[in-house]
């Protein structure tokens, strides 16, 4: 059995000139906390 989730999430905004192009942390957007093949349990964080 399998569960497929498809959802809308924040994409993050384009960086301003002051932030620089490498500073992703200030831009928001969706971030995954998992890897392919990883074992997960109910309630664990997949992304935020």
């Amino acid at each position, binding site marked *: 059995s399998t*569960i497929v989730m498809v959802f809308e999430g924040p994409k993050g905004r384009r960086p301003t000139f002051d932030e620089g192009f490498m500073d992703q942390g200030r831009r928001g957007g969706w971030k995954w906390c998992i890897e392919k093949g990883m074992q997960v349990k*109910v309630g664990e964080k997949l992304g935020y």
Partner: protein
Amino acid sequence: LRTALGQTRTVWRPIPVVAGIAFLGAFQLYHTQTRGKATDDEWTYRDSEDGPSEDELGRPKKRKRIRPSGPWTVQIMSTLPLKALSRIWGKFNSIDLPYYMRVPGFKLYGWVFGVNFNEIEEPDLHNFRNLAEFFYRTLKPGVRPLDPNPNALLSPADGKVVQFGVIEGGDIEQVKGVTYSVDALLGEKHVDTAAPSSNIPSNPGSAQISKSRRREGDQEIISAEEEFAQVNGISYDLPSLFSGASAKKRKPRSREGGKLAVEDVNELAEDQSTQSRATSEAEVTADLARSPRAQKSWWSSGNESEEPTALYYCVVYLAPGDYHRFHSPVSWVVESRRHFAGELYSVSPYLQRTLPGLFTLNERVVLLGRWKYGFFSYTPVGATNVGSIVVNFDRELRTNSLLTDTRADRAAENAAESGEPYSGYAEATYTAASRVLGGHPLQRGEEMGGFQLG
């Protein structure tokens, strides 16, 4: 045996070898000829590409199910009556085991599939009468703590992450780069499930009534029981949607393009505990209220908000030894469900690699709704050994049912006779479950249902 293996002389007879090669060649030829006929919608019925849809007497031709393309293992599997096997498997596992066989039997099963017996809520394994009950076991409270981050997407079940990422161009990448479209997985956009307005209506019932009446004006209305009974065998009472809690009205069902839309499974509202529902409603309302984006209900429904969004996906595979109940990954509102009565192929990682569009072939229940960032969908996909999908707040749902399959086939034939496309699913909306949110609210971590054997 050792002596026989070592001393028996192998003699290759030419005729069986040639016959075997000829068989494999013919099989491969047949495979290459039929492969080109498959479409993205492989779980549906073959259309008019086989010639006229009527025979010489003007009767509609019986349509054939398309066989999926793939290696010989998939070809063999596609010839098997998988749903019948799944039902037999379920009935077999519902047979009560002898009392003294239960503990060693479950221990053996747990040893083979890696079950952690320390987490099981029921301490005495004798109390599981059969494997089906053991398979659908519950866990001790507190053994699955929820992540404290309120913005996190939680794992809905115990399992393995098969795939995740962002959807570009409407396609989900399966394992090894095989893709399938979101529409094939979830069904196409349905006007009735779209967000009613830019704001959550204070009385969603009135919005629903107006839409329903408008549909009556310009759609073919099939009045009452027998038509929807073709899909689920159950007729639904319209809730207190029209005028009050005591109103019991049969709602005429509209038929659009061969799709049978079921409005308002409100008996579920009566089944739910009022207090727990009120708690869920309050929490989900507070969560959704933080973002006006949550009022949208379909992923393609515009993006006028200041913050850009993207469409993400995540696939979690549950192995046979895992805890087989699933939970809500976020706080969200389920607005509707679509039941696709497809096949029941195995969803093992091997078949996910070799069978393109596996998730769009199998029987599945698509729950559609919204969360604070907009659209949210949750799709439990059945498999051969676990064909029965249970959704706790939808007691009318029957999966892996012979009756449902027969009625879905009949609905497809009826749609073909009337010249309408058949979308392949039966739909129910939950708008009456919560008058405030226009759907069924679910808290993060709340148990939603599960997979049962067979």
